[in-house]
């Protein structure tokens, strides 16, 4: 079994390439839609090599996404897992299913926080078609602010969140109004480049202004949710059906969920939200019906920033963090999520965030060398990024036009 499996994986990429190249040619002459054929050929080739490709090549069936893309993708994942289990028989992830389950639920909980973070990025993008390269810094700003507020008071972390939200909202609006106005007003030649460089510059400023305020690059541990119990919840660990959950993390996840639900309500149930979505769909048409796209941009940027700040505020009482490392790492997570889910899609941001949360938790928990797990936790995001870019650049819930 094992040598066969490994052989398959060494040969897998070769068969994958063969399938991706030759199946589309076959379909071109037979049925059309070579694009899907390329994907199917690549995936089936990787999964079962010639045994899957030969029947496809011979019979040229009508391709369906479920059967010819999702199924082989699942099979490949399964084979990879088998291979992993075989290579690391002593790994705790292989020997203890409950541990894996525990990692998954941790990942999902963290994913809820990631969703808050990423939905801010996606909101800004949908309204103005720019990506904020300051997003990670806003998360860190929220985190540092929370840390400082908690240090100087004895409130439960939840009660400082409104302050953080307002502060980051104002910060966002000021940046949008003063620095990003030319993008919105269309008064510059290359708005995309300008937005990238400008938000990147603001990011550098904010990063080192925060480091300067704290004195040095430091590791920060803020007061935990359970340090200042609310409703008498002060148990550090929650146990349920054999799974152990950190109470702090659960509370943070719950906060993330509440924020996400509130955001959905705002976007889909209020007129403000509807005007956002109108501008996102068609700026000119929105202008015709009397929506001021400039004001919408300011609001969206402010709310997007506030979401980042809130994510930081919710994270900090559950995890230790490092200034300034936190900025780049959270930023990368947000980018991976929005690309995975499709830029501009709120549902995509949620599902992408949950997925990334699980992938990261499994990488951190299962990486053969535990001391490196934390590093590759972040790096696993890049792998997800790469796969999405190659397979489906518009993301899984995005529109094809991006």
């Amino acid at each position, binding site marked *: 079994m094992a040598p066969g499996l490994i052989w398959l994986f060494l040969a897998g990429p070769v068969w994958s390439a063969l399938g991706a190249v030759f199946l589309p040619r076959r379909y071109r002459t037979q049925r*059309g839609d070579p694009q899907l054929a390329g994907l199917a050929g690549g995936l089936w080739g990787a999964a079962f090599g010639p045994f899957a490709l030969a029947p496809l090549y011979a019979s040229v069936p009508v391709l369906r996404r479920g059967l010819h893309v999702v199924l082989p993708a699942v099979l490949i994942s399964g084979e990879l897992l088998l291979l992993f289990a075989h290579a690391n028989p002593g790994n705790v992830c292989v020997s203890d299913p409950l541990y894996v389950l525990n990692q998954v639920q941790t990942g999902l909980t963290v994913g809820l926080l990631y969703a808050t973070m990423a939905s801010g990025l996606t909101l800004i993008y949908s309204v103005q078609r720019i990506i904020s390269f300051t997003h990670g810094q806003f998360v860190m700003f929220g985190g540092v602010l929370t840390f400082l507020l908690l240090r100087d008071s004895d409130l439960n972390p939840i009660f400082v969140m409104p302050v953080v939200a307002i502060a980051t909202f104002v910060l966002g609006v000021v940046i949008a109004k003063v620095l990003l106005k030319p993008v919105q007003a269309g008064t510059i030649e290359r708005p995309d480049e300008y937005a990238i460089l400008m938000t990147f*510059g603001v990011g550098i400023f904010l*990063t*080192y202004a925060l480091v300067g305020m704290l004195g040095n690059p430091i590791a920060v541990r803020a007061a935990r949710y359970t340090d200042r119990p609310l409703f008498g919840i002060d148990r550090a660990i929650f146990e349920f059906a054999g799974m152990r959950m950190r109470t702090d993390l659960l509370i943070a996840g719950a906060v993330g969920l509440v924020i996400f639900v509130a955001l959905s309500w705002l976007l889909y149930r209020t007129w403000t939200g509807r005007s956002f979505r109108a501008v996102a769909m068609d700026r000119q048409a929105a202008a015709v019906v009397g929506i001021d796209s400039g004001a919408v941009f300011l609001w969206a940027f402010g709310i997007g920033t506030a979401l980042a700040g809130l994510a930081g505020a919710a994270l900090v009482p559950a995890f230790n963090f490092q200034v300034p490392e936190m900025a780049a790492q959270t930023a990368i997570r947000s980018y991976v999520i929005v690309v995975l889910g499709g830029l501009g899609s709120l549902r995509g941001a949620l599902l992408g965030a949950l997925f990334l949360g699980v992938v990261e938790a499994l990488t951190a928990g299962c990486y053969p060398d535990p001391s490196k797990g934390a590093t590759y936790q972040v790096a696993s995001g890049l792998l997800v990024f790469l796969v999405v870019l190659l397979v489906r650049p518009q993301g899984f819930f995005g529109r094809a036009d991006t």
Partner: protein
Amino acid sequence: MKVRAAMPLVVLAILLVLVPQLWITSEYQLDIARMALYSACLTITWSLLAGVAGQFSFAHIALAGIAAYSGALWGRAIPATIPVLGNVWFSIALGAVVALVIGTILGAVVLGLRGAYLALFTLAFGEITRLVVIAEKEVTGGWLSLGIAQLPGGPRLHYYLMLGLLAALLAVVYWVIRSRIGLFLRAMREDSDVAAAMGVDTTRLKVLIFSFTAFLVGLCGAIYFHTIPRLTPGILDLLEMGFVVVYAVVGGLESPIAGAIAAAVLVVLLEALRVVEIGPYRIEPGIWRYAGFGAILVLTLRLAPNGIIAPLVRWFAGAPRRSTLGTTGIESMIGPIAYPEALAKQRAIDLRIEGLEMHFGGVRVLQNVSFGLDRPQICGLIGPNGAGKTTLVNLISGYYRPAGGAVLLGGERVDGLRPYEMATRGLGRTFQITRSFRRMTVLENLLVPELAMHPTEIRQRAMERAREALRVLGLEHLADEHAGALSGGQQKLLELARLLMLDTDILLLDEPFAGVHPVLKKSIGTFVQHLRDQGRAVVLIEHDLTTVFSLCERLIVLDRGTLIADGAPDEVKRDPHVIAAYLGIHGAQVRAGPSEVEAEGADRR
């Protein structure tokens, strides 16, 4: 180069050579000077990639770091006593090659990505490189740092080495910028789709520029860090990338030499601000200096988007001040159109479209469309909005792949070929919305297709032909203006001039008359007729039926993705299907279905 332009460069070079003799008093200062030169090298290569080619990659520093680490690891693994392989220069070359390979892979991966997506991916790549270097401490030493073999000679020699590298880099980078590759890179930056339509292989160009700059930055990194005793993951910090961006923007993104000057000045400034003493006060800004750099970047972008140094460099170089565009009357602007017979040649026209199919998602945009072009003609392509006209043009010219059917050019299957290949095979197109290379001069706009179509032609001849085309369209007096400064009508003319340079047998014109002054409209009409008289076949999308009937000798009518009529205008005019489609009998009103939205969206990209 003119003497006036060369003089400041010579003075600058002499000053830089004299720096260690005249001003430097300690080895530490020499280190800073060397770092300033290295930063200048980084900025030059990034300017080429981001400013000239428009590829905003944040993986630049990571590539330099990868080269340095590769060289260092090789140097540690191979004893220095082994000839060639153990030599420091071999390690350096190896580092540069590793950077080249990784840069090429990166270029290929990000091929389909533009703007922000590219920046996102490369930023993540750079950060993860750093994390991996920190984590794999058994190999890289992690934060404990890694010893690295030193280049022979002391700090003074190393200073001159970096100076030599800088000079060589400037020479190479400016040679590239002035070559046809540089022209194509700028065209790709301005509008990748149009560059492809003009016959530029943008795919290869993009990978090429990634590889090339990766090699250059890898070389710089490998050389520089072989003069620094130890490597730490700090060299991969995002802040280092931030510095390069600041230097490039403060210099002026499109001007590598301005970026280099900004880098040198700012590195020294950063060092000088370590301790500030004003009278009795002593301030140590420390980390706030970095925040200050962020502020400099933000303020420069907001207040002087073209950079601070670049305008000064241009002034020193004595570049001619651009005349402000006169708003003369439109007739004098166009002038009489005269056609040199030199541009005419023997043409064979054979384009066949067979059963073309296309759908976006579930929407069928084109169904079983077939027609052919076999002789010089002006063929109108008409139909209500959303009929699939632009989609058809995009399919034929290689911007979309058809879901079914075939496009044959000269009897050969060409569907699925890329746009530039269609151009080089003799099929040219324009875009519905006028798209010029805005930050290039009018003359350069024409040189792009000319040099792409005739790779071996010498520049002088190409310029002559471009000026000839400008004269034909009455744009001669605007040759040195930026295309972005032209009026809408002038841009239309520029687009036609580009087609003249492209000199293809078949032309697909997507609404060339849209939004054009009536007088100009007439001139363009005459021009199109002349293109036909020279033996070309022109397919013309147009909504104004008067224009269509006056110009075209054949009409093709599309409605809801199917071809409903094909023939002489008089027959088509009486065709009941056409009347139904245009006048809305049977409730068939003018629709703006999703297909049209898609097509226009694609057109804008």
